[in-house]
């Protein structure tokens, strides 16, 4: 019977176009905004390439909008290498024979394969022209010389994280918090609406005749959980996709799943704990209300408190970790906000094990409490029609075993 209810709960949402609009609209919107932003920033500055040991190539090197070759004295090469900035590169001729020429490029940004090829082509043409001169061949013969060109690109890693990378990390934290907030609230609100629909239509009575109320609630929670995971999966895939795309567009961010060391196990645990906690609370909120326009005090609290806390979280994240770190840390223990804040912290900092355990223990305790109280309220308030429950009634229901 529980499976039948679960099936209906899933099927009725999955076939509803509004559900998919809800799931896909946010990624599409964010994707569109991000896409336009990144595309507008496609015009890269010219890279100043300092030539060491190949000064004779300089006049022969054609300038392109991307590369501007500047010969420098080899005596200042080491100093220049140490002070190399963004938008600068050092090209060192490390080997030169009649058949082989080797270059090493030092830069703070990664050149894409196409860019490397473009630079190689410029170098090859210049070398060929120098060789033609050296051999005294007619100028039109240079194309027949094809020296082997070795090219190595050394990335000079920044001593500290680049501001862009740090910015992306905080953006990622906010994105994860937003994602979790959306997933938890959507799962909870879906359960609230489902409970309320059956309560206001008296369908709860039909169901409760044939199936124990606890099983109805469990089936709803499972459906909510699965739909939340689906929603989270879609949003998660979107974030991973955006991350991958940004990485390709802006390779010098040095971000990858490995470097972020995403703690998937912890994230999933917080997600599941959060969904269950919210689901029980929203189920109780739905049962204690009379209709969407007659929400009980509990339902209103479940609407406003997480929203306000979420706004606070985003504000604190935006200000960086130093400002409001204590508040963020406290919010990462508080059960209603811990599933939203702690995953963000886990992505940006090393969270001590005890903090994780404390946070999860509090979520587990709250979920257990919410399960008992939520189920009690659901069972007792489900058949009380025509009134939203007062705090006094809710308290009376919760107190009685």
């Amino acid at each position, binding site marked *: *019977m529980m499976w*039948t*209810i679960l099936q*209906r709960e899933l099927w*009725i949402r999955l076939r*509803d176009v509004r559900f998919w609009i809800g799931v896909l609209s946010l990624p599409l919107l964010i994707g569109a905004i991000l896409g336009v932003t990144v595309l507008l920033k496609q015009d890269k500055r010219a890279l100043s390439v300092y030539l060491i040991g190949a000064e004779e190539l300089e006049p022969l090197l054609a300038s392109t909008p991307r590369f501007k070759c500047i010969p420098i004295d080899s005596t200042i090469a080491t100093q220049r290498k140490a002070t190399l900035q963004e938008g600068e590169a050092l090209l060192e001729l490390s080997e030169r024979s009649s058949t082989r020429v080797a270059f090493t490029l030092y830069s703070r940004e990664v050149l894409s394969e196409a860019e490397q090829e473009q630079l190689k082509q410029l170098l090859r043409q210049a070398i060929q022209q120098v060789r033609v001169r050296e051999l005294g061949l007619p100028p039109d013969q240079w194309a027949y010389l094809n020296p082997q060109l070795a090219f190595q690109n050394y990335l000079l890693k920044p001593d500290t994280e680049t501001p862009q990378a740090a910015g992306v990390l905080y953006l990622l934290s906010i994105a994860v918090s937003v994602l979790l907030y959306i997933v938890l609230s959507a799962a909870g609100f879906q359960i609230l609406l489902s409970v309320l*629909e059956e309560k*206001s*239509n*008296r*369908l709860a*009575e*039909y*169901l*409760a*005749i*044939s*199936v*124990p109320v606890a099983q109805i609630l469990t089936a709803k929670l499972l459906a909510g959980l699965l739909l939340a995971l689906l929603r989270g999966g879609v949003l998660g895939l979107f974030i991973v996709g955006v991350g991958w795309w940004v990485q390709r567009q802006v390779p010098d961010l040095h971000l990858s799943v490995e470097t972020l060391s995403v703690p998937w196990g912890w994230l999933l645990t917080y997600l599941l704990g959060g969904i269950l906690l919210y689901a029980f609370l929203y189920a109780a909120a739905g049962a204690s209300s009379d209709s969407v326009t007659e929400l009980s005090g509990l339902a209103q609290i479940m609407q406003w408190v997480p929203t306000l806390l979420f706004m606070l979280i985003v504000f604190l994240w935006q200000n960086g970790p130093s400002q409001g770190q204590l508040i963020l840390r406290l919010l990462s223990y508080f059960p209603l906000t811990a599933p939203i804040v702690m995953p963000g912290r886990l992505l940006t900092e090393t969270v001590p094990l005890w903090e994780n355990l404390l946070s999860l223990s509090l979520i587990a305790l709250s979920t257990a409490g919410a399960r008992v109280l939520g189920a009690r309220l659901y069972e007792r308030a489900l*058949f*009380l*029609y025509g*009134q939203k429950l*007062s705090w*006094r*009634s809710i308290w*009376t*229901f919760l107190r009685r075993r």
Partner: protein
Amino acid sequence: MIQVEGVSKAFIGPTGKVVALENVSAQLPPGQIIGLLGPNGSGKTTLLRILVGLLPPDTGRVLYGGQPLSLQLRRTIGYMPEERGLYPNMRAQEQLLYLLRLKGLSASEAKQAIAYWAQRLDMPWLDRRAKTLSKGMQQKVQLALALAGRPSVLLLDEPFSGLDPIIAAEIESLLKELAQSGTTIVLSTHRLEQVDHLCQHVLMIYRGRIPLQGPVEALRQRFAEPLYELEVSYPIREISWPAEAAVQFLDTYKAQVRLPEGMPSRALLNALPPEAEIRLFRQRLPTIKDIFLKQVSPDIV
């Protein structure tokens, strides 16, 4: 036989504790239509919910054929709650299938039952979403839900509210047919005039108690007054009626006569002249509505 033994139920309302039922006991005979009567807020719906097992009584118990109500037994009860509804975005057929599956019917049994009741209740529009159906159509779907699976007990809370007379008459005849085939039907209703011709047994509930219950005919006899209807072939105003009789002339040949307590009805016949031919002479029994109002109205007033 459904036995209700000393059932009490109280709720916590905004103004404190509200006693919905107080030590209610009743015996509901099988294969009959039992009318559950009472003013609004008297406890009818609470009693029906306890009968179907949706609410546990605070004290007392309900027995079906001597057995306490189990989940298995609950699934054999057809139930139609008050102010019911359907899932607005589901097709009527889908929700019938869904809810019947929950009652324990297999998919094929449920489909067969739906096909049968779709024909029986004339519902060719079952593939439409519930939100596009009229109230009467939705009531039919809910009735089909209560009836499918051939329940041995039907509990119907205000099944006729909001129905047009044609559908109401259809449902009335259907209920009579089911009762004849052995189904016990308990229906709560405000249409008291309906009870006389539809129900065989009544349970009057008032302020959480049952002041009156029993077979309809027995109650009518019990509350009968010495009030007689008379139709003769002689002008009725020219008859010398006993001085103690209160005569109400209905037309030239008809009257309604109330005799004082203890006076035999034969006194009326003795007053008739020999040439008066008696066309009708009967005691006017009270309707269930009369009895109900008599029982309840003094308090209401």
